[in-house]
């Protein structure tokens, strides 16, 4: 299963990087959001660390929708989805492959958002670096397990980006709140406190929805329209 998941992920990454628009759109939209929010900074004033965290994760959430929309849309043409379903690859490996591809693309887009947040929103990373990376990776896993599961919901739909946003954003609230708070701590010069509860929440979210995704994905990824 893992080898086939790797094949799916490699195929998706290849297509996304060579001809797909999801990553480019995600990066551009995220950058635009960060820049537009920087306009809310009062002249000579500062954007708070928490607000900067919120803007970063908002850009990431929109990026997630665009990335997964693209990852599922590339199989809409020429009956590629039916082809994958007919292949010996188990459906779970499709979910895992999509998740890995989505995580890679999301991380790439966040490598652009993070410096943009620091530059446009006037932030400095004061907090521990391990906390920043642990939050980034943990919260991203939470985002992609939901994205990989629910991205398939809107397959074949005309207005799938808006449909996906409306469905996915409220579900992501626990992991987004955790990401915002922990990034706020990293950007703030004050010592980080209570990080274990928030990291625990991210871990619980990742485990719960990874289990749900494994169980439920075969129901949503099908040949039906």
């Amino acid at each position: 299963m893992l080898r086939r998941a790797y094949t799916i992920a490699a195929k998706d990454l290849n297509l996304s990087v060579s001809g797909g628009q999801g990553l480019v759109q995600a990066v551009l939209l995220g950058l635009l959001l960060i820049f537009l929010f920087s306009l809310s900074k009062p002249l000579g004033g500062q954007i708070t660390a928490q607000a900067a965290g919120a803007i970063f994760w908002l850009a990431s959430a929109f990026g997630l929708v665009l990335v997964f929309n693209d990852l599922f849309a590339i199989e809409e043409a020429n009956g590629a989805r039916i082809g994958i379903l007919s292949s010996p690859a188990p459906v779970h490996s499709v979910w895992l492959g999509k998740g890995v591809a989505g995580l890679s693309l999301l991380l790439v887009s966040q490598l652009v958002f993070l410096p943009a947040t620091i530059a446009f929103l006037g932030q400095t990373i004061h907090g521990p670096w391990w906390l920043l990376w642990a939050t980034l990776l943990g919260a991203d896993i939470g985002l992609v397990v939901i994205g990989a599961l629910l991205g398939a919901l809107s397959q074949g739909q005309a207005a799938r980006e808006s449909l996906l946003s409306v469905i996915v954003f409220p579900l992501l609230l626990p992991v987004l709140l955790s990401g915002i708070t922990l990034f706020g701590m990293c950007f703030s010069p004050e010592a980080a406190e209570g990080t274990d509860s928030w990291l625990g929440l991210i871990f619980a979210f990742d485990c719960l929805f990874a289990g749900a995704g494994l169980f439920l994905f075969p129901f949503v990824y099908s040949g039906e329209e």
Partner: protein
Amino acid sequence: MKVKILAALAGIALLVHQYMIWFYAPVAQSGPVQKIFYMHLPCSWWSLVSFFVVFVSSLLYLFKREPVYDRVAGAAAELGVLFATLALVTGSVWARAEWGHWWLWDPKLTTALIMWYVYAGYLVLRSTPMGRDRKALVCAVLGIVAFLDVPLVFFAAKLWGSAHPDGLARKGSGMEIRMWQTVFAGLTAFGFMWGAMLLTRAKQLAQHAKLEALLVWDDE
């Protein structure tokens, strides 16, 4: 017949509940505005029950693939959103009168709001043009995922509230026995109403499905 009995019981129980609110339950320290609580709580409680029914029906649909479970899930989600809306509005009015704010970062209020968003999204998904079986399937999946999110949302809102000065945990209520009796009368009355509405809506959806099956599309 069941619907008629439930509706009749709901009518009587709601009248009794209104009597208890205005003439039986004592006026609280904060004044008559506290009486909104007797309608706020049942709305909130039955919205959560509705979301639980969506979850159970969705699981049953995934395993049994019988359309009745999909219809019950759809009807329960509509009722859940309706009751959650009423709970949010009454809660907001009450908060404004009691604490001077329309909105507070209270874990229960925040969870109710997020659940409202989640299930409003679920209703949007139900109304999208899609094959009937596929729609029932994806709605069942979302119905399960949405309910799994409830405890995490509550915990996140509680953690967030504890870190903010405007976070406000409600202290022990210290309610009198007659107040509690009014609360339980409200839960019962709203329960009858909820049951009658759920059955009616599920029946309507069954009729709708039957009519759609009879319809012959003629493009020429």
